[in-house]
Every structure is written in C-alpha cells, then in structure tokens.
C-alpha cells in the first residue's frame, strides 16, 4: 500500500503538472493573442460595482440564459452541478499527491455541508445533459451547432459527473474515520443500489481508485481540451459578461478618418480586432440563439451571426502566429478568397440587433459585421453595386433618392409648417428625415404628424432644405466618410439653432441623433414622436374621439425597440387611440420583434437571396387577422406595405401618426 501511494503520488504529480502546464500554456497563448491584436477599444471598464452585480444576476442568476426556459434550466443545472463538483475534485487531485491532505480537517462542518450539496447537484448535471442530448439528437433545431465538439464536451462532462458519484459511492463503503455516508446522500443511495457494501475493503478500494483515475484523467483531458474548443466559453463567458455594455443604447464606432497616420480603416484583418472583440469570440459557445432570431438567417440568407463569430474566431486562431510575432503585414485579410465571410454574409445584415439582444453572453456581433463593411467600403470600394447611386445621391443631394435637397420642405405645401430659420425660437425642432420629406408614403406620414402636432398646440419648426440625411444609412453601409460628412453638416446646422428639443419622425434619425451625434459634439434632448405624443396624450392634449380601427397590431421598429428600448409608448398610443377596437400582438414582438428588412441600408439594396424579409413579416401580420398593422417608422411602413401587397390579406399598413391623426380629427 505504501509503495502504491508513492507510485500514485508520483503519477498524479506528473499528470497534474503536465495537464495544468498545457492548460496554462494554451490559456496564456489565448490571453497573449487577446493582448496582441492592434484594434483600439474605446471601452472603459467603469462602474465596477454594477458589473459585480451583473456577475450575480447574469452568471450566478443565469438570468440571460434562462430567457429560453427549458434549455436555460438545463444550463443552470449543468452550471451549478459542474461548479459544485470542482472543489471536491480538486481536493481529490491534491490528495492523490499528498494522501494525508484533508480539507475536512480544517472545517469539517462547512466542508461536510458543501459535500452534501455537491453530491446532490452532481447527478442533476446529467438531467441537464439528457435534455441537451435530446435537443441535439431529436429536436435538432437548425440554429444549434451539432458537431463532434459538442458531443465530446457532453461525453467528457458526463464521465466526470458519473465518476464523481461513483467515487463518492465507493468512498461511502470504505472504512474511514469520517462518516461519508452522512455527506453523500445520493452516492450512499447509489452504493446501496449497487450493493457496494458487499464488497471487501480491497475490492472497494480498487473500485474507488479505478473511478478516481477515470475521473481525474477526464478532468485533466477536458482541461487541455477546453481552450481549443468552443467550450472556451467556460473561461471567457464570465469576463465577457463582466465587461458587457451596461447600456442598451449603443453608438457605432467613430473612426478617425482624419488620422493621416492610419493605414487602414474598419476591420480588414483579424489583427485589427480589439481585445474586447477577441473576448467576444472566446466567449461564444455557439448556442445559436442569435441565428434563431436573425432575420437574414430566417430567410435563407448566408448570414448567421453565430457563424460570423465562429469564422472570425477560427481566422484569428489560425493567424495567431504572425499576430503574436507582431508581423501583421503577414496577416491575411478576413474576406480573402475562400473565406466563409463573404460579401453576401456581411451585406445581408439589417443591423436589427436581434443577435446582440438575445446573446446570453453579450457578444456584439454587429461590431464585427459593420466594421467589416466599413473596411470593404473605405479601403476596397467593395459593396453591392446598387449602393453606388445611393451614396452618390447622398453626397450630391443629402438624401438617398437624389431629389433636389432644396425641395425638402415641399411636403408641407398647404400646411402651415414653419422653417426654423423663420421661427428660431420654436420649442421643438422636428427633424423630419429623408423618408418623411421625399418618399410618397413618408410624406403622408409627415403630413399626419404635422396635423397632430398642430392639433396638440405644439410650437414646432422644421429645418427644410438646411436638413441633410442623418447619416445612418451611409454609416451602417460602411461609408463612414460620407456618414461623417452628413453628420457634420447637420451638427453645424443644429449648432446654429441650438434647439431646446429635437423631435424625429423616423427611428433611424432618432437613434443616430440621440446616440451617435454626441460623438460629434452635438448633444440635444431628442425624442421619437411616439414617446413625445404619448406624453401629450397623457397630458390630455390628444384626445381620441372614439374612432374604431378594428383589430390592430404593432410592428416594432428595431431602432426604437432593440436599439433604444422603446416598446411601451407606441403600444400604449395604439391601444389608447383605438379605444373601442382591439389590440393584438404578433407572435414575434417586443425584443423578439422581427425586422421589416430595411435597416442597415438594406432598404437600398436588392434582396435576391432566399425569401424576402418583408414578405416573411407581412405574412405574420396577415396571419394575425388584423385590420391594420401599425408601424412607427417610414421604412417599416414601406416594407410592410410592399410585403402585404404580395399576400391576399386585406391588411392596411398605418403609421402611428396616421392613427392618431384620424383618431383625434
């Protein structure tokens, strides 16, 4: 026995030493890679107290992962069970080297209590994995990566858990001075069930040792396997969640295009990622929830946010050597020949942010897609050809359609809408936007909104020809140079008037003025008209006359909802204005609302692959059996109208402004 223990000590010391060294080297490699990438992150790890709270809610509370009930529950069981076995397994490892080591000697009661919990939680991991296996072998949802990696991980962890319980079961029947039966309730049952008590002490010891080696061996194997697999998630998810954006609102990265020393712009090579991007990549475990929500993935486009993250990660790891050597010249472009990240992948994105919203570990997929677009446009002039005219129109006439910008206020004809240049002291500056000024559908919505504002006695004015496109479309299409030109133009004009409040008709104008203009030194209080009018309604300045619109549903605009968290005001307005009528939700609504297909500049691109996104959404609206679907964005309205035209359904598309206009007339 003595010689065996010496042998075991040496064996364990060698095994632990080797495995932990390999693990440490792999993790160090990943960490160095994260530090070696050259992209600059503007992220400041501020508000540490809030971030620590996030660890409690998101990590220990598993709040994000449980937004999907059953898989979330399964994950919680696996998470806690797996976490629970670790201290005991560690103790067993140390014991292998130093047989006299006993944590229980130090704090027998605490350690005993812990062992009880671990012994109960461990087998629950198997319940979690049974569900995980069921999903992968029976349910097989499209968005879930089902590969060798996933199966190996399940195998590894199941072996770890089963051997954990078996070790404990053998421990129970071994003669020791410590009453293990009391702290291993489940394993004691297991021992009884297998009738382990009938074994001789030697037999029991052999059983214990056998499963001990399998247990420790699997853990060490898993340890070495983790950093190279998608299960790197185990290590990176927690820091990634800790450093998550604490605000829902976000701004696209402002590229310093005047930096004459800059050799490249946007994201062209993995060496240009920043540390936070890399942490994002490490944190992904390919659960596929982003793909499940993505409008492009749902309509047979080649884009899957999950695959984008996966492909960037693979590219980064493959090109780690030159990055670590500081030889970024040798790093190949992301969109090189044969890369899975193709033009169709990056240009299919509507920037609806469903992926970022749903991600349980707060990965920001859009940063990868939109920055890659930026690189393609600025450095390669590679973009869907139909965008060239749109860009040129924006350059020449400050609107995507190329209408003469001096006709921007022509939609007001017959309405008494003052220009801010004639009425600079107006309480509210209404930034009308291009769709509201030039598009036929948009102009009708603007006229309705103008009447509503007048009816509510709002003192407002518009910019008219002084207004330029807000820059959202150019920016999300990667044309940062053009976007900044337009933004600067508006920032200067706004600066002249210093408006007390800006009101927007379009969620895209709203988002960029609110969240991105401050990057250019323009910070003004800005509201989308839905919130503004809901306030007026509450003040009794917009009283519905009782018009019945029948059954209505509301289509969430991505840039109101997911980008800015505005879900309630539009719904409340629709419901209040349609007092005798009914309000119903479509299946996909709120944070899971399905994009109309227009965002991210998609409005101005052809949609030739797969099903049209707006058709998909229109069919859902039609299936809701409503009289009208209500939008709060001129682009949504156009997309839904076009989509509904293809269905047989007699469903109207109305903007909330039009509903209020009719309801209060």
């Amino acid at each position, binding site marked *: 026995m003595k010689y065996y223990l010496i042998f075991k000590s040496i064996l364990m010391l060698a095994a632990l030493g080797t495995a932990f060294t390999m693990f440490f080297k792999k993790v160090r490699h990943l960490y160095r890679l994260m530090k070696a990438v050259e992209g600059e992150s503007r992220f400041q790890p501020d508000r540490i107290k809030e971030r620590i709270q996030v660890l409690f809610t998101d990590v220990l509370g598993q709040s994000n992962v449980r937004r999907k009930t059953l898989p979330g529950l399964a994950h919680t069981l696996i998470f806690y069970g797996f976490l629970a076995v670790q201290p005991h397994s560690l103790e067993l490892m140390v014991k292998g080297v130093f047989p006299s080591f006993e944590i229980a000697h130090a704090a027998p009661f605490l350690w005993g209590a812990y062992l009880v919990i671990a012994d109960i939680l461990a087998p629950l991991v198997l319940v979690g994995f049974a569900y995980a296996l069921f999903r992968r072998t029976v349910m097989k949802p499209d968005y879930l990566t089902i590969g060798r990696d996933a199966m190996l991980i399940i195998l590894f962890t199941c072996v770890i858990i089963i051997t954990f319980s078996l070790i404990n079961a053998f421990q129970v029947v071994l003669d020791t001075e410590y009453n293990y039966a009391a702290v291993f309730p489940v394993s004691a049952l297991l021992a009884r069930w297998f009738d382990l008590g009938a074994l001789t002490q030697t037999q029991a010891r052999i059983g214990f040792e056998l499963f001990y080696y399998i247990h420790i061996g699997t853990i060490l194997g898993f340890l070495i396997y983790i950093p190279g697999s998608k299960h790197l998630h185990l290590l990176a998810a927690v820091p990634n969640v800790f450093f998550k954006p604490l605000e829902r609102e976000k701004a696209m990265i402002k590229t310093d295009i005047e930096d004459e020393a800059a050799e490249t712009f946007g994201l062209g090579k993995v060496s240009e990622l920043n540390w936070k991007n890399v942490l994002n990549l490490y944190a992904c475990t390919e659960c596929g929830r982003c793909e499940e929500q993505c409008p492009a993935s749902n309509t047979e486009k080649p884009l899957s946010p999950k695959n984008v993250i996966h492909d960037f990660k693979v590219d980064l790891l493959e090109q780690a050597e030159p990055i670590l050597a500081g030889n970024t010249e040798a790093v190949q472009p992301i969109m090189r020949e044969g890369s899975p990240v193709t033009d169709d992948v990056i240009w299919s994105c509507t920037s609806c942010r469903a992926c970022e919203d749903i991600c349980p570990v707060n990965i920001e997929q859009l940063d990868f897609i939109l920055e890659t677009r930026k690189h393609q446009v600025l450095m390669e002039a590679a973009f869907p050809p139909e965008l060239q005219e749109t860009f040129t129109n924006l350059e*020449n006439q400050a609107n995507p359609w190329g209408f003469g910008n*001096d006709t921007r206020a022509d939609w007001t004809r017959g309405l008494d809408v003052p220009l801010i240049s004639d009425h600079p002291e107006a309480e509210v500056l209404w930034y009308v936007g291009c769709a509201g000024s030039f598009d036929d559908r948009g102009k009708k919505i603007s006229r309705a909104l103008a009447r509503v504002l007048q009816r509510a006695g709002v003192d407002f004015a518009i910019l008219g020809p002084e207004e330029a496109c807000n820059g959202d479309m150019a920016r999300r299409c990667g044309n940062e140079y053009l976007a900044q030109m337009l933004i600067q133009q508006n920032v200067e004009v706004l600066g002249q008037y210093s408006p007390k409040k800006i009101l927007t008709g379009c969620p895209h104008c709203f988002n960029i003025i609110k969240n991105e203009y401050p990057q250019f030194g323009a910070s003004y209080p800005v509201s989308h008209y839905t919130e503004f009018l809901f306030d007026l309604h509450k003040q009794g300045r917009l009283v519905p006359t009782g018009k019945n619109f029948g059954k209505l549903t509301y289509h969430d605009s991505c840039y109101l909802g997911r980008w800015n968290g505005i879900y309630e005001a539009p719904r409340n307005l629709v419901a209040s204005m349609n007092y005798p009528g009914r309000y119903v939700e479509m299946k996909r609504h709120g944070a899971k609302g399905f994009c109309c297909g227009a965002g991210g500049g998609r409005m101005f691109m052809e949609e030739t692959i797969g099903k049209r996104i707006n058709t998909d959404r229109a069919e859902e609206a039609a299936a809701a059996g409503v009289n009208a679907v209500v939008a709060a964005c001129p682009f949504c309205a156009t997309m839904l109208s076009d989509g509904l035209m293809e269905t047989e359904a007699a469903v109207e598309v109305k903007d909330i402004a039009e509903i209020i206009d009719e309801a209060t007339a």
Partner: protein
Amino acid sequence: MQIYVCVKHVPDTAANIKIVGETGYNDSACKFIANPYDEYAIEAAVQLVEKQGGEAVAVTVGPESAVGTLRSAMAMGAARGILIKTEEQFLDTDLTARALKAAIEADGKQADLILTGKGSVDTEGFQTMYRLAGAMGLPVVNEIVKLEVGGGKATVEREIGAGSREVLEANLPCVLGATKGLNEPRYPKFPDIMKAKKKPVDQKALSDLGIDPSGAKTKLLKLEAVPERSGAKMIEGAIPDQVSELVRILREEEKVL
C-alpha cells in the same frame, strides 16, 4: 501612355438653379459635380494607365470651384489636374476647345489619347470633343461604348441604333467621347480621396494661354426656367365626348391645333 481627360464641373441634375434677370442665375445652393459622362472617360483613362502604364491627367475649364471636380477625377485615379480658370460657368464651346488644346499643349507632353464625355449635362452642347479634335487636327469618335488601345491605334465601338454597333479604328493620338456602357465608373476608395487632396493642380488663367474670352463665337441671350409640370387632367364621359373635349382643349386652352 499620356492621356488627357477633359472633365467639366456641372450642376447636379437634381439641383434647382434660380434664374436671376435675363442671363443671370443663383447657384449658391447648388451642388456641382463632375459631369457624369466624363466619369466614363476618367474610368477608361485610369484603366488604360493601370494596364499600360503612363499618366492620366484631368483637364477642366471652369471657375475656381471646379478644382472640386478635378479632385473627384484624381480620387478616381487621375495623377494630376489642370484647371483653366474662367469667370463664368458658361463658356463658348469654341473657346473651351481652344483653351483645352492650349492647356494640353502647354503641358509639354505628347498626348497619346484625349478622352471626354459625350457631352455635358448642363449646357448639352455636345461639341467640345469635335472642336478640340478639329483644332488639334486629330481624329475624333464620340459616344464610344468599347475601347481597346494597342499598336498605335484605338479600336472603338459605338451604338448606331437598333442594337447595332459600328467598330472604328483611329490612329493615336485621337479624341474619344465616352458614354454610358463603356465601363462602370469606380467609387473611389477612401485613401484615394485623401491622396487626391494632395495631388498637384496646375491653375492657369485663359489669358495665360493667350486666349481672349471676348472672342466667343456664341453669346448667351436668355435663360428660362423649365415650366413646372402641371398635373394630368382626366377627361371623362363617353368616348365621342372625350374626343371632342380633347380637341377643344388642344385648340382653345393649349392652342396647339
């Protein structure tokens, strides 16, 4: 190859130009761009230089602000620019051609090819390339949709209607007018836009080239705004009544019959 591309600084077609007085106008709120047809010429020149080496030089006759158009041409790949400064936007075509000739010759390099657009979208004279070729004694082909250069010759194709094309050969140097279909003018890469800001522009006055602006062969008499399109009128009723009503309107209201 030494290629000169003649580009014109023109108001964007969507721009609304307010006429002031008889021949005056206010273009302060109007965006000027490189003449769209000239962009085909720039693209063709840049592609030729990329393939065969040499230099593409953008030449324009226009007011000081026309430097903007030269910068656009240089962002697309022209190596440098020549601006022949004028006081007015509208310059007689003959003077323009003579100014272009003088500037190209004064540049001191033997031109292998001179490219222009098929015409400008502002004055729509469609004469500059012919007058330029005439003044320089060079062959000229306008509205080309295909161009190949080699062996001291340019082989070009042009649409002659009904889907037919004629194929012509011209000895170099020659003057060629480009039109839609020749190529897809590139959208400049951002670093090229920045580089273009630093490329040299040689500015000359008409007088530096020995040209007297008073020697114009044409004179601008009057500018008139295009009448705003009125809405369509639906004539209703039985067909014979509709016909009589139409004839009455054409005769009495529109006075065209």
